[in-house]
Each structure stands twice: as structure tokens, then as C-alpha cells.
């Protein structure tokens, strides 16, 4: 067993373990921390595949920025573990959850068996040769700002939309607006009563 394989298995197991714990643990803070562990392990996997840039970005953006923000939010909201999370789910949805999981598992097995069947040639044949600098920052940057410039810019629009949406959803009403609304509702109530009569 070479070192590469050892690293792969260790980080893969850590990633899956982190993800499982993240779902099962009831304490939100611990849950976020497990997610962080999982992401870190995934970053290792990326780097091992040669996608250096992706690995680093995963660490910097997700682990460094987004999850820390998550932690802040969770702590600020002061959620405690073990709270009642509402009604247990209906048997139907519980069943479908397991069904989807099972399907994905079957699929995974098929994919692994399919690619182990000695057909790598067809795949790589279509992919073309892998360049030496594959996954480096320069390479990704070149692609991102030439061939894929347009989708890259498009994601900018997407982010803008998300911001606008978040503002609309999250913003509290000012007192003036609340008063306006109340007035409107009253007016409307009157008008519809008149129409009915």
C-alpha cells in the first residue's frame, strides 16, 4: 500500500465520517464543526487529484469564510442541541429518504464497477491528454478568464440576484411600512365588504 492510497483512504473516511456526524449530531455548533472537518478532508482529496486550486479554494472560502460565518450565526442565535425539532416525519417521506439513499448507493456501485471494467481508455480518449499544469492556479485562471469568461460573469449576476433576494426576505419592516400596511389592509377590508353587500 503506497502512501497515496493510504492518504486517500484516510481522508475519504474522515470526509464521510464528518458528513455523517454532521447530520446525526444534535448540537448545531458541533454539527458545523463536523462539516468543517469533512470539507478539510475533501480539500485533501482534491489536492491529491491534482486540483490544487480547488483544494485551496475549498479551504479558504468554505472552511475559512463561510463556515466561520455559520458558526457566528449559530452562536448568535443561541440554538441549543436536543431541542424538539417538530413532528417526526411521515412514514412516506421516511421511506423515500431511504429509497433515494439506496438508489444512490446502487448507482455508486455501478459506477465503480463500470470504471473498473477496463474502459478507462474510452474515457480518456474523449478527454484528450491531461496537461501537466492541470489544476494549477494559472491554468484555472486562464480558463476562467478566456474560454469560460462568460459563465464566470454570469455567476456574478447570480450572486447579485441572491443578494437582492436575501435582502427582500430578511429585511424587517420599518414602523412606517408596518403602519402603511395596516392602513392598506383596513382599507381593503372595508372595500371588499362594500362590494359584497
Amino acid at each position, binding site marked *: 500500500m503506497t502512501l497515496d492510497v493510504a492518504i486517500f483512504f484516510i481522508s475519504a473516511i474522515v470526509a464521510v465520517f464528518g458528513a455523517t456526524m454532521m447530520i446525526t449530531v444534535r448540537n448545531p455548533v458541533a454539527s458545523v464543526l463536523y462539516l468543517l472537518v469533512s470539507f478539510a478532508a475533501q480539500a485533501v482529496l482534491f489536492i491529491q487529484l491534482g486540483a490544487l486550486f480547488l483544494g485551496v479554494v475549498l479551504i479558504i472560502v468554505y472552511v475559512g469564510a463561510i463556515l466561520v460565518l455559520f458558526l457566528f450565526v449559530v452562536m448568535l442565535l443561541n440554538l441549543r442541541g436536543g431541542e424538539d425539532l417538530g413532528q417526526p416525519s411521515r412514514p412516506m417521506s421516511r421511506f423515500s429518504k431511504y429509497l433515494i439513499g439506496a438508489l444512490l448507493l446502487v*448507482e455508486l456501485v*455501478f*459506477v465503480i*464497477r*463500470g*470504471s473498473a*471494467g*477496463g*474502459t478507462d481508455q*474510452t*474515457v480518456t*480518449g*474523449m*478527454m*484528450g491528454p491531461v496537461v501537466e499544469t492541470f489544476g494549477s492556479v*494559472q491554468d484555472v485562471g*486562464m480558463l476562467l478568464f*478566456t*474560454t*469560460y*469568461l*462568460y*459563465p464566470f460573469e*454570469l*455567476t456574478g*449576476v*447570480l450572486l*447579485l*440576484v*441572491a443578494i*437582492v*433576494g436575501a*435582502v*427582500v*426576505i430578511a*429585511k424587517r*419592516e420599518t414602523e412606517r*411600512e408596518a403602519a*402603511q*400596511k395596516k392602513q*392598506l389592509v383596513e382599507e*381593503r377590508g372595508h372595500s*371588499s365588504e362594500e*362590494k*359584497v353587500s
Partner: protein
Amino acid sequence: MEVQLPEVSLRMMAPELFLFVWALVVITFDVVTKRAQGESVGYLTMVGIAITGGILAITGEGPGFGNMFYNDPMAIFFKIIFLGAAFMAVGSSFGLTKQKIVNHRGEFFGLMLLSTVGMMFLASANELLTIWIGLELTTIPLFVLAAFFKDNKLSVESGLKYFIVGAFSSAVMVYGLSFLYGLTGTTDLLQMKLNLATVHLTFRNIGVILIAAITMLIAGIGFKLGLPPFHQWVPDVYEGAPTPVAAFLSIGSKAAGLAAFAKIFVNGLSAFHGVEMAPNDWGKLAGIVAIAALILGNTVAIRQTNIKRMLGYSSIAQAGYIMIGMVAQSALGLSAVAFYIFAYMFANMGAFAVVTAFEDKTGSCEIKSYAGLAKTSPMLSICMTIFLLSLAGIPPLAGFLAKYFVFAAAIKQASLEGGQWLYWVVGAGLITAVFSLYYYANVIKQMYFSKDDSPYRVGLQAPAMLVVLIGLAGVLVFGLYPEPVLRFAGEVPSMFGFVSP
């Protein structure tokens, strides 16, 4: 490393860019005027859409950014549908924004425009990444719009539900796309088609991954279209969301999903409905989904008492009819799909405009509360009747021709070798069409057959009136003289490399 940029032409993207800027203008205008200008924001939006339509008319065909943005007849046809749907949705939401949305009117209309921009980008995309981003750009504003009434429990529920389902389906879809990329080594659909055609995949080796990709893509897009078994969100979202948003959702987002489906499956994977790769034939899988949509949508709609839920289920069924044209996998089928959405737009937006006006006046969406409406608001009832009959597919309205062409495409394909299974799809479509007539006629029954007068007298505001008139004109004119649209729709598949019929 030399720098290579694809062929770039901003002129080709002019309509999208303009509409994007206009969306920002609308939002800013609302903020700058301290949200006092209630109606003018709406009019501003409508003007913007109209100008975009004008720009679209003079843009012409050609690449905007290589294959990632290419204006072909299909893109233009779908863009017309998106703009039309947006225009009619905005037009019918004046009363609603006046009554229920005190602030954020600018955002309401702005998000609608941004969603339209996403659809338009999607329509021009011929590449997996841009298709996916376009689809996201389409749906993310719709999540927010569905939850726009923040103090209404149903609306928030619908927004949340739509968001979770949407995010999940996007994830499934992107997973499928990654498989496709991994298999073919390209995100470009044309290249993908060529690559797949040169390599003979069989079930033994890599075919199974392709099956997985196809399944996940059908699931992902099926969520967007509301096809069973991914349809559960549809009625709840339609019921809870603001009515014009539901209308926009039923046309815009559905047409966007269909465009994505046509691009990925009918174009990119077209090499795989041949004889060689029987297990990878996506058509049969999609056909089963279509049959399920037809049966489920049309039967469950019968039991609905809320008109928005009823229209929600009916939209599931309509998606099933559209999929009949899609699984025909032919040039005629794609033209039929394009024409179907076009005709569906007029009827459905018109019907929703009437439902919105009725809801604004009475606050009720129950079908029962329409009783006797024909006596107090005869013109509105006639319009609603015509829209519903068009949805049910009664000649000489446009909805009939739409159904007719979809069936025609399927039957034509069914008469070819190995296409006999399509008769099952057509059969399901026919039998359920009778069911659909039942629940559409139920609304007509309420309006006309009641002996008592309705307590409400529902009028239409000027913009809503315009919407209803556009819908009426579309349904009648394109039902009686569909030739120009048909000619245009006939060009839709021209980039797909079918032999023309």
C-alpha cells in the same frame, strides 16, 4: 500560454444586457422615489420588457460568445415566450402589488425581470455550464418571489418548499452534468454529440454511467418541470405563492426547463436514441415520466377545490403533454413543443390574470366562489371560459392545435420502426384529455350553471385588461391562423441537425 477568446459579440447579447440593466433601474427607481410611486414601477417594468422585445427583434442570429451564447431560431422563439410570460405576469400583478406589497415593489418586479434574464441566457446557451447557471438564475429569484408575502404562512411555506426542492434538484442535475462531462470530456453540447457518436458505448462498459447521468438529469429537470414523481412541490407552491408569480412559474420556469431538456437530451444525447444503445434510450424513461404526469395531473386536478391548486395540477398535466412532443425526438416534435408552450402561454397567463383579478377583489381562490360570476361579470367569464377551453384543447382555439401537433409528432414517430411504444404515450394523453375537460368544465359550470347571482362584480384594471386581451387575441388568432407561428416553430430545431420533415 496563448490567450484564446471565443467569438464575442455583445450585440447578440443586447436584449439580455438591456433587460438586466433595466431590472437594476427598476429596483433603483423604487428606492430613489422612496417607494411612493406604486404603479409607475410596474409600468416601468412593462415598458422595459416591451423595449427588450424590440431589441430582440432587430438582434438577429449569430454567436454572442462562441457556443456558450448562440442566438439560433430556438433561442429567439423561447425568448419571445419568456418575455411574453413576464409581460403578462407583470401586467396582472398591479392590483396585488397595490394591495399586499407595501415595500419592495421594485424588488418584486426587478426579481421577475432578473429571472427572465436568466431564462433568456439559458435559451441561448449550448453548453452545460451556461445551461445550469441560466437555470439557477431563473429559479433563484422565483424562490424569493414565491415567499414574497412574508407574513402569510402559505406563501412562506411555498417559498421554503420551492427553495429546498429547487436546491436539491439543482444538486442532482449538476451531479448528472458532471457525469456527462466526465464521459465526454467536454461541456459543449455539439462537441459532446460528436464525441458520443464516435465512441461506441455499450452497457458493459461505460453505458451504465450514461444511464446514471440520464436518470439524474431527468430527475433534476423533472423537478423544475414538476413531472412525477418530482411534482409534490407544485400544488403547494402554486397555492401559496402570489398568483402572478405562480403564473410566471407555470410558463417561464417550465419553458426554461423544457429548453434545457431539449438542448441536453434532444441535441446533446441525440446519438443515443438509436438502435445500438437500446438501454440508454432516454426517450422511454421520459415517456414513462410523461405518462405519469398525464395520469396524475389530470386525475388529481379533478378533486381540487382551490383553483390555484387545480391549475397547479393542470400544469403538471400540461407538462406531460409537452413531453409527448419531446419524446418523439424529431424535428416535428420539437416544433410542436415550441408551439405548445407558445399557445399554453396565452391561455394560462390569461386564466391566471382572471384568477388574480378575482382574488384581488374577493380574497378567495375557491372554485365554489366563482358561482354565478357569469351573471355579474359576463365579459370576464367569457374570457375565462375561452382560456379554460383552450387549456382543455377545444378547437378552434390555439390550445387544440398545440395538443394536435404534439400528438401528430408522436404518432408520426410511432409509425416508424421501433416507435410503437409511443402509442402508449399518445393513448394516455388522449384518455386523460377527457378528464382534463371535466375539471376545466367544472369552473365553467360554476360560473354559468348557477341559478344565483354572484355577490361579486369583478372588473379589470387597465394593465390586467391588456393582459387578458393579449391572451384572448393569442388564443383566438393563433388558433385560427397559426401559419406564421408554425413557420417560426418549424425553424426551432434547425440547429439540432435533424433532417427537416
